[in-house]
Each structure stands twice: as structure tokens, then as C-alpha cells.
């Protein structure tokens, strides 16, 4: 890295001047924490007592046999407290906030997972908490909103722009520029201005560190490929970090192909031709934007992947050819989810199901002597409204109609 905060030409810290000191302070605090081994130890202790780390690596025996190719292992981030890898980042930032002596946290959330994780962390650490969430995502992920509120957070639906993740990020920044002394913005993914990408990647590296050790133990060798879905990129960079120095391991980032890459209805930044370099939300990366630099309205069945930008770290790795990017369409994702539930008894989040879909497409190309890892970033329970809707499940509908009528009465 030439300039701190840059990954190749990607990254940076395009922040309003009013936050200059806040970022300076954050950079200093983060650097100090990173340099202090006791901080990481405190983090590991917290994650192993409050969450369930190390999370298991599960051998998907049935699907491996069914596909007849590589042996498939699943890294179980769904078993974290709050149900996703988001907890890794959030609890780490929580420790940092405590160190900085701040008393309030804010966050954006797309799928709601990061919001729930942040509200949880705030409850645990005794912080005030406000969560910004695009109005459309509030609709898609209502159960998460309910729990955030019950955890003591204030959830603010964001009605500007496309009413999704990127707008929630803007709104969180608007809060932060108003109230920065006591407030830390808990960025939920490995994006945004420096030092967020570095910080989030650091906390998420716990996934990769564990995964390397586990696969070596269980499969007796490194995996041929590692698959992770990519929204902002935090779960992907988390697991990929375990394998960056071993080029024989192919790293595959899977983006939301939505209705197909040709449909314009997707959120594929690095696997489609629809993105171009840009600067927004505080950093330089490949964005889905028009020729004028206005951000596009992206689409995905999964709220957590429905985002215009992508981690500058991943963009750099992509540019260097160190990570291959692919997209899985909504329908491929639903099929992969279905198969994973029925054959392994595991319910991946819709986001994570993208990684499963791509791995299933490719597993057959590999030999039964090969191992691959799918990073299961989260569990799918949270997606019940979306999944039941996608299945067009009649008894679910009937149930909701009945409940609705009961409440309307």
C-alpha cells in the first residue's frame, strides 16, 4: 500500500471536513488497538464467550456426494450470536468504542443483520444506539426491525434515494457529522472511508484464520476454492484473508445476479460490465452508476447484497486477479437454498445462498480429492418473509392473512 487507506488505486477517505478530527482520533485509536496484542486477546475472549467462536466447519457430505465433485465444507458464521458474521465486526468495533470512551453508536443496515448485531453490541456495552435502514429494507426485514427495537435501539427508516443500504449509509453519515464527539459510526461492511475497510477486514479475519486451521485438520489440505457472497464484502474478505498467501487456493466472490446480468436488475459490481470507477460514500471503488456518476437502483432478492459499491480491498484483489468474481441469479439462489435445506438441514441466509449457488455450479468440475469451502455468512431464519414469499407458500400466506385480519379487527 502506497498511501494508507489505499488498496492499489482504490479506497481513500473522502470525508466531509467536519469529521476530520473524528477520523484522526479513530485512526489513532484503531492503530493503537491493532498494535496491542491484549486488544485482540480481549476480542477473542469476547467472541468465544458471548458468541460461539470458533464457529464450526461443517462437511456437507450429502451434497458433495450428490454433485459428485469436490468435498464441500461450510464455514458456519450463521452460528454466531445474532446469526451472521456481522457480529465479528460489530463486537470488535464495540471494544474499540469502549476504548475511545464514546457512549453512542450509529449504524446503517441493509438486511438488518448488521443493525441487529449493532443493537446487540450496544445493549451489551451499554451504548445508546440508532440504526438507519432504508425504508424498502424495513419492509423486507421487519422481524429484524422488531428485534432491534426490543434490544433498545432506535430504528430510523430512510426515505431518501432508493431507500436501501446506500441511502442508509448516507443518512448515518448525516447523523455522524451532526454528532461525532460522543458517537461512533459502526460501519457494517468493509467499505466506506479509511480506516473502515482495514478495520472491518481485521475483525473479520477471524473467519479466515479459523477456516485455514479447520480445513487443514478436516481435509488434510488446503481447499481448491473458497466461495463467499459479496455485498460490501466483509464476509468474503474475512474468509479470503486466510488464503491470500496461498495462490493455489482460488478465491471466488459471488455477487447478486438478481434477474440476470443482462437484465440491468442486479447488484453485480465486479462480475458485470455495468460498473465503473467512482467515488461515493467516502471511498473510491467500482460502482454501479450511470455515465453521469449517479448511482443506479440495484436489485437483489437479498437485501444484504443489494448495494452499489464494493470493498476497495476486493476491487484491488479483483484487479490483481487474486479473486474471481461471479454472479448468482435469484432463481439459482433459491434452488441452492432449497437443496441446502433439504439435503443438509442447513438454512443459509439469502445472501449466503449466493455463495452456495456458485459453489454448486462449479463443484462438479473438481475432483472428489479436492475440497472447497463455502462461507455461510448467516442464517436464513431472518429471511422468512422473503423466502416464504419467493416460495409463494400458500399456508404461510393464509397464516399472514389471518393474523392481519385479526390485527385489523
Amino acid at each position, binding site marked *: 500500500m502506497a498511501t494508507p487507506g489505499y488498496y492499489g488505486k482504490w479506497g481513500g477517505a473522502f470525508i466531509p*471536513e467536519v469529521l476530520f478530527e473524528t477520523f484522526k482520533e479513530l485512526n489513532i485509536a484503531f492503530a493503537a488497538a491493532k498494535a496491542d496484542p491484549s486488544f485482540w486477546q480481549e476480542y477473542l475472549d469476547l467472541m468465544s464467550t458471548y458468541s460461539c467462536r470458533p464457529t464450526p466447519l461443517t462437511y456437507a457430505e450429502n451434497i458433495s456426494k450428490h454433485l459428485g465433485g469436490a468435498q464441500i465444507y461450510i464455514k458456519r458464521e450463521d452460528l454466531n450470536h445474532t446469526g451472521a458474521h456481522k457480529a465479528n465486526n460489530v463486537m470488535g468495533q464495540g471494544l474499540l468504542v469502549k476504548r475511545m470512551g464514546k457512549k453512542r453508536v450509529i449504524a446503517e443496515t441493509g438486511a438488518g443483520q448488521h443493525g441487529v448485531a449493532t443493537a446487540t453490541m450496544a445493549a451489551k456495552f451499554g451504548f445508546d444506539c440508532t440504526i438507519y435502514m432504508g425504508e424498502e429494507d424495513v419492509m423486507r426485514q421487519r422481524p429484524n426491525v422488531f428485534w432491534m427495537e426490543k434490544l433498545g435501539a432506535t430504528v430510523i427508516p430512510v426515505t431518501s*434515494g432508493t431507500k436501501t443500504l446506500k441511502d442508509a449509509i448516507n443518512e448515518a453519515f*448525516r447523523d455522524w457529522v451532526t454528532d461525532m464527539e460522543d458517537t461512533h459510526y459502526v460501519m457494517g461492511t468493509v467499505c466506506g472511508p479509511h480506516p473502515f475497510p482495514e478495520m472491518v477486514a481485521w475483525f473479520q479475519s477471524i473467519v479466515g484464520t479459523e477456516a485455514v486451521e479447520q480445513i487443514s485438520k478436516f481435509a488434510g489440505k488446503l481447499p481448491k476454492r473458497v466461495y463467499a457472497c459479496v455485498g460490501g464484502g466483509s464476509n468474503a474478505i474475512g474468509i479470503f484473508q486466510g488464503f491470500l498467501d496461498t495462490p493455489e487456493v482460488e478465491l471466488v466472490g459471488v455477487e447478486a445476479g438478481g434477474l440476470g446480468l443482462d437484465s440491468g436488475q442486479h447488484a453485480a459490481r465486479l462480475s458485470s460490465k455495468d460498473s465503473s470507477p467512482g*467515488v461515493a460514500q467516502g471511498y473510491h471503488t467500482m460502482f454501479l452508476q450511470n455515465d453521469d*456518476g*449517479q448511482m443506479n437502483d440495484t436489485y437483489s432478492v437479498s437485501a444484504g447484497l443489494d448495494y452499489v459499491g464494493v470493498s476497495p480491498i476486493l476491487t484491488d484483489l479483483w484487479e490483481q486477479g487474486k479473486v474471481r468474481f461471479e454472479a448468482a441469479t435469484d432463481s439459482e439462489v433459491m434452488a441452492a437454498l432449497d437443496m441446502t435445506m433439504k439435503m443438509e438441514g442447513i438454512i443459509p441466509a439469502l445472501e449466503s445462498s449466493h455463495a452456495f449457488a456458485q459453489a454448486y455450479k462449479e463443484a462438479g468440475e473438481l475432483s472428489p480429492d479436492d475440497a472447497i469451502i463455502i462461507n455461510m455468512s448467516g442464517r436464513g431464519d431472518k429471511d422468512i418473509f422473503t423466502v416464504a414469499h419467493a416460495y409463494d407458500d400458500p399456508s404461510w400466506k393464509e397464516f399472514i392473512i389471518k393474523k392481519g385480519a385479526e390485527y385489523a379487527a
Partner: protein
Amino acid sequence: MQLEQYIKAELEKPEKDILLMTHIVLGYPSLEVNREVIQQMVDNGVELIEMQIPFSEPMADGPTIVQANQEALETGISVADCMAFGKEMCATHDISFLFMTYYNIIYKYGVENFFRKSKDYGITGFIIPDLPPEEGQEFLGLAKKYEISPILIYAPTSTDERMQTLDSYADGFMYCIARKGVTGQQTDFDTEFDHYIGRCRAATNLPLAVGFGISSREDITYLTGKADIGVIGTATINLVNNEGATAVGPFIKGLRG
């Protein structure tokens, strides 16, 4: 340099204790209305106008301007339309016009191309709230080359040291935001503000513009003697929304002396 000279010259006019800079979101509600509003502003003595090229992610703006950006984009306005309109305004009115926008607009347009065209049209400065000098080395170099003032920002959170650093890059005037937060909320002027503006004055020789939440004759009166330029942003957008473009003239007229 040209911008600073213009400001100093204007301030030397006997009746002008303070200048006014107003703000416009291009294309909101339409370029026609923008044209009319600018006419009213110019007719009533505004010295500088910042024309905001709408962006889909106006991170540093408050709800009124956010919505204005969004609705402008929904009308289908393009950056090219905005440039052409800027050119027209510079040609029509004998005041100072600046472009305000977020960095991505310039970046996608081609930074040097953006400077070259703006210079051609007669634009005097750029205000880019998400481009700190650390990220704007190319931008600042081109600003020098094309003699367009890069307007930098002082905030109440800026330390004296930071202010001096910013001063070393800035030109034209210094945009002092009156309080933390985004555009569009009222600012309370108090001794804390006085202290802050004193720090600003000490840190730079450039003229000081004060913006964020300036909306009344009282505000302008308060700023007179402390700052060189009062910036009226959201206030005129609200006015046009509620009372139409013709209300802008009397409003502007009433702000000073």
C-alpha cells in the same frame, strides 16, 4: 485569485458590509425556475451563487436539499445540462458563479475536462464537500492550473492546526460551516460561534463565508463584521417551494441593511 479579488472589491463598496452567496439546486424544480430565481437574486444584489449539480448521494446535505437533488434527477437532468446552464448564467449575469457538487460528478466527467469547461464558461470556484485536500491533490493542482478557486471548509470541529493546513490549499474564500451537521437546520449564534469564527479569522487571510442555517435578516446582521459572506442555502429552496420564485427577490432584498 480572481474570486478573492472580486470579493474584496465588492466588500470595498461603501454600502456592502457583508456579501451574500446563495445556493441553487440545478434542475430543481426545473432549470426554468432556476433561471428565474437567479434573476431575482442577481437583481437584488447577491454577489455569489453556488450552483449545485445534483448527485444521487448527497451525503453532507440535509433533507430539503437531499430531496431537491433527488427530484432534480428524477426530471432527467444531466451533468451536461447543468454545465450548459452554468455557461448560460455566467454569460448572462455579472456576478460570481461557483459549482457545488460531490466529487463523483467531477470524477466521472473527467476532472480536467470539468475544470477546462468551467473555466471557459467563467465559473470562479468549486465547492466539493466530500473532497478533503488529502484526497484532492490532482484537483488542487488543476485548480491552480485553471485558476478556479477550490473552496475548502472550516468546521467548528477543525483544530487551529487543521485550519492552517486547509488555508495552505484554499483559495477564493473559506467556507466556514456555522455548526456541525448537515444543511438546512437553524444555527444558534452564540459566544461559542464567536469564538469559532475568531479562530477561523486567525487561521486564514481569505475572506470568510459562513453557511448552514442562515435564513434571516437577523442572522445576516449578526454575521456582519464577523464574516465577509453570508450563505443562504435551504432558506431560498423552502421559499420557492412555498411561495414561488417571485418571493425570492423581496426576501434577498430584506436580508441586508
